[in-house]
């Protein structure tokens, strides 16, 4: 404590301390190498995808991965559960469908408008419900999603009711986006962007603030983190991402039903986040891939698929409680030592 006796500076720098500090900074290689690998894999994938069906599976994985990453920012990093996120996805999808079909808007304009509307809705909602904690927040978000589904089902003159409505192709810069092979690069690029942006975010001061408020809200507040504002902004961010993905998915599929906004879909998204690994971006990518593939893989089990799906969920949460990617990464690290 000898340095303390020479005021007024608190804390002395030394080359050793500086080196030790910088060694803890997230390294360029550890952060960007996996992204480059991802980009290369996604770019190479078309050479081995035999036909449009596999493109379709790939696109579903990509879209779900983007959704899961955005939701993970809210659930995994920020610690705020949402059991109604498909509601925003559905609003985006139907926003685009309705504006292009009934109002003759161009698809990009409709997408932007729906995203903006969802942003405003999410902001208003967040201001009100993010004061709630734990299961009360779960209930509120769940209710929100269900209300969206009910409205989409009932307003049949706009939405086509429970049987759904078709959505036209999207034109972007004079290019008509249609077919799996055209959409694949769009979603692939989006995922790479999502991974890079999310990785940057969680390592930034804003990301640190999010994680800190998850760990201890009161500690975060006394160092000046406006927790209410952060929660709101992340909620809005993940809602807008969901809306944009909803719009794109609607154009890609060409047909949507209110089930895109259902409780089931919300739970599926949360499951991707949790099974893949909370507060892990790669976990979300992995969780999305796994849970998007499972229904296809289990399609032939004739009735037992629900049981198997449930067993996988329960077993993962019991044996790999932090989710697959973080738990396995930890195991590998321990083995390596």
């Amino acid at each position, binding site marked *: 404590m000898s340095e303390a006796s020479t005021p007024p500076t608190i804390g002395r720098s030394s080359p050793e301390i500086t080196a030790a500090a910088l060694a803890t900074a997230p390294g360029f290689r550890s952060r960007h190498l996996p992204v480059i690998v991802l980009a290369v894999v996604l770019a190479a994938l078309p050479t081995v995808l035999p036909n449009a069906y596999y493109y379709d599976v790939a696109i579903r994985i990509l879209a779900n991965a983007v959704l899961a990453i955005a939701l993970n920012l809210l659930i995994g990093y920020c610690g705020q559960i949402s059991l109604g996120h498909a509601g925003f996805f559905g609003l985006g999808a139907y926003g685009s469908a309705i504006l292009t079909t009934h109002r003759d808007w161009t698809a990009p304009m409709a997408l932007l408008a729906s995203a903006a509307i969802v942003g405003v809705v999410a902001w208003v909602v967040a201001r009100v419900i993010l004061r709630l904690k734990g*299961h009360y927040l779960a209930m*509120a978000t769940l209710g929100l999603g*269900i209300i969206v589904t009910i409205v989409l089902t009932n307003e049949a003159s706009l939405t086509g009711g429970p049987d759904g409505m078709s959505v036209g192709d999207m034109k972007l810069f004079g290019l008509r986006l249609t077919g799996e092979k055209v959409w694949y690069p769009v979603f692939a690029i989006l995922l790479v962007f999502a991974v890079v942006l999310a990785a940057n975010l969680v390592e930034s001061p804003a990301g640190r603030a999010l994680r800190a408020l998850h760990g201890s809200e009161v500690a975060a507040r006394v160092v000046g983190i406006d927790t209410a504002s952060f929660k709101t902004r992340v909620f809005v961010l993940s809602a807008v991402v969901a809306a944009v993905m909803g719009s794109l998915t609607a154009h890609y599929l060409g047909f949507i039903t209110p089930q895109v906004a259902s*409780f089931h879909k919300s739970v599926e998204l949360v499951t991707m986040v*949790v099974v893949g690994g909370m507060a892990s971006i790669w976990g979300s990518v992995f969780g999305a891939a796994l849970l998007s593939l499972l229904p296809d893989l289990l399609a032939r089990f004739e009735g037992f698929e629900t049981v198997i799906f449930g067993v*996988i969920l329960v077993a993962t*949460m019991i044996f790999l409680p932090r989710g697959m990617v973080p738990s396995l990464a930890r195991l590998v690290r321990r083995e390596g030592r």
Partner: protein
Amino acid sequence: MSQFLQLLFSGLTVGATYALSALGFSMIYNASGVINFAQGEFIMLGGMVAAVLTASGLPLPLAVLAAIVVVALVGLIVEKLAIEPARDADITSIIIITIGVSMIVRGVVEVTMGKGSRALPHFSGETPIALGGATLLPQSLWVMAVTAVVVAGLAVFFGRTRLGKGILATAHNRLAAQLVGVDVKKVLLTSFGLAAALGAVGGVLIAPIATTSYDAGLMLGLKGFVAATFGGLGSGVGAIAGGVLLGLIETMTAGYVSSSYKDAVPFVLVLVILVVRPRGLFGLGPSERV
């Protein structure tokens, strides 16, 4: 007036079943801080097992009893195999576990008992009772009466028995309860078994009126969760009040406003209530210590 009376009867019947479901939620929430998304499946399972057994020739009272026992056992198994090993997991993870459990229960019922709907015979006939211009099924009286008995029984259990008091103590402060010698593991197990049995009772009571099928659990479970939140999670009085209130709101909305939006109204209302009272109508205030 007779229309109002009719809606009141319907609302109370439906509300009583929601109350039973909500009580199940509250009981498990109290003992473990877990919202059990499989509670609806317990209700479904109760109705299905009883229906299958009566269809195979077992007398109704025996079938009902057997169904309650079977479902309680399932509740115990669920706690032992799925909840206990994950004690320290995050809220979100435990929600996923209970959702996984509900898928397993639903899937097993689907495979073993089929996808069709089933009805249980009414306990004492189907001749409606006329009352002030409205009619009431004898089964509705069963629903309300049994709910009242269950509520009274639970009051005695929590107020008088050692185990019941232990559950309450654990709900209040797990560590302190452990220190004064409450067997927390046993409390958790009991609460799951009891909640499952409660669900089964609800399922058996409502099955003659509403019929049942392997996929009936989700909606009943969600309604129970809404009712429990209405009243304030963990509050017994709140669960009953929430359930009855929810049933009344639904039928009154369907009767006087719009049947299309009757399912949306409870969710809108639960949002409003949470905004005004973040812990429901009868929930306790926040007790965070810094």
